[in-house]
């Protein structure tokens, strides 16, 4: 046996766990190896030292302490477990809560809701006198608020009101004034002056926002010259052709499709011209839909649903000619 192997079996040698043959080999090696004899002496000293450690007796009041702890109420035990010792556990737990909050805020950042922003704009607009309202503002502020925002500004309903609300249909009802085709497209190059002036005048009269109000000086002068005819043209009620109505319906359908919506139902009048279309669009796309609808016609909200739909919003669009 080599010295390394002897060192490995010295413990077993002292515990009498070796076979007689192995014991004899170890004994023979130890006789001629001072280093291994020193190692054996070291192991013996270690054992003696460990065995010399005195037994530590339990404190005199040990039994009483155990009984006191056994008699504690479960609530007290839980509180002790959670908060004792206070100067160590409370700061550690506070740090843990803070870290959790930071992680949650990092994973789910708090951003102001778009609808809330619109509600704020509307509130501000309602406070201001009508003439002070900037012409551009109504473009977005006009859009009816979703239920959760409108509810914040409304006083609490009485029981009767609630009953009535329950009977209301859960959809937006929108009256859409169809914009004539001539208003949607820019004037053609070959158009005569009267037609262009008529178009500009109608635009000025019907479209309240200033998006398209860019009548040039020449047109204004021309309007002065031909004032009477243009006024008559503006006030004269127009009725759109079934073709234009159909085109509008197609545009609405395309718009709904582009915003992940779908057409639920279409209703036709006696002349077989569509006069109502019911759509369903994702609630998150409602604002975009209303913005786009402003370009197709002139929407006017007749009724808003009593409850805010979580995923999809239903809209009934009545086509007004």
């Amino acid at each position, binding site marked *: 046996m080599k010295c390394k192997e002897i060192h*490995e079996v010295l*413990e077993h040698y002292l515990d009498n766990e070796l076979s007689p043959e192995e014991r004899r080999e170890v004994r023979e090696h130890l006789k001629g190896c001072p280093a291994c004899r020193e190692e054996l002496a*070291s*192991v013996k*000293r*270690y*054992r*003696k*030292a*460990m*065995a*010399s*450690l*005195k*037994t*530590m*007796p*339990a*404190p005199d009041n*040990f*039994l009483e*302490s*155990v009984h006191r*702890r*056994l008699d504690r109420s479960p609530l007290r035990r839980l509180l002790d477990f959670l908060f004792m*010792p206070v100067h*160590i*556990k409370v700061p*550690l737990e506070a740090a843990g809560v803070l870290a959790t909050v930071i992680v949650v805020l990092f994973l789910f950042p708090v951003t102001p809701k778009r609808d809330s922003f619109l509600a704020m704009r509307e509130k501000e607009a309602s406070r201001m006198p009508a003439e002070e309202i900037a012409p551009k503002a109504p473009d977005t502020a006009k859009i009816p608020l979703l239920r959760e925002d409108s509810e914040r500004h409304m006083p609490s309903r009485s029981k009767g009101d609630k009953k009535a609300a329950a009977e209301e249909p859960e959809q937006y009802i929108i009256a859409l004034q169809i914009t004539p085709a001539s208003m949607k497209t820019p004037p053609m190059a070959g158009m005569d002056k009267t037609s262009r002036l008529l178009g500009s005048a109608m635009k000025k009269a019907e479209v309240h926002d200033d998006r398209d109000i860019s009548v040039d000086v020449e047109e204004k002068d021309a309007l002065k010259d031909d004032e009477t005819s243009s006024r008559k043209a503006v006030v004269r009620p127009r009725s759109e052709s079934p073709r234009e109505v159909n085109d509008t319906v197609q545009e609405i359908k395309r718009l709904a499709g582009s915003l992940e919506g779908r057409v639920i139902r279409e209703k036709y009048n006696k002349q077989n011209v569509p006069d109502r279309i019911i759509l369903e669009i994702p609630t998150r796309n409602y604002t975009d839909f209303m913005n786009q609808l402003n370009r197709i016609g002139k929407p006017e909200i007749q009724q808003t649903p009593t409850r805010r739909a979580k995923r999809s919003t239903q809209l009934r669009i009545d086509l007004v000619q």
Partner: protein
Amino acid sequence: MSRRANSSEESIQRDRKLVEEVQLQKSDAFDALMIRYKDMVFNLCYRLLGDYDEANDCAQETFIKVYRNVKSFKFKSSLSTWIYRIAVNTCKNHLSSATRRFQIKAVRLGNPAREGEPPLEIRDVSQNPASLFERGEEQQAIQRAIESLPPRKRILVVLRDVEGKSYEEIARITGLKAGTVKSTLARAREQLRQQLKGII
């Protein structure tokens, strides 16, 4: 040999009677059980934790667990092995708790005895009742050396070299294989002897 076997048999019978009385909720039966094992449990906790108050807390916790679980004790092992197992697990949980690591007022020497092992810790034991008990410098040095071992090695050294348990019993208490116990214990002893060179 025969006398030792008889003594062991008597001890087992006494434990069985004690447990049955505790299970029947006889008055003072649990006190008798505690009186029989409290010093053994306290000493084990003290050697594993190295702190008098923590040892007291863990020893009490051990007996509370014994009291709450004694109804399900089926004598699959001896009572002392079962109590040792509870005490070792309680101390192990305590050693790994963040609270304890925070509580240790120790100066780390930053010069570990061996690479990969935790550094030697010097505790402030001047007010510790145990330090009054262990006046000998050698005893204190041995205790500090034991504390510097990682939990598993510490448990094996205390059970084998301090408490004098057999390898089989240590395997039953710790749930380790006997081979693992022997090899880990050999490494722990080697580490301790190196640390205690010049002291013992």
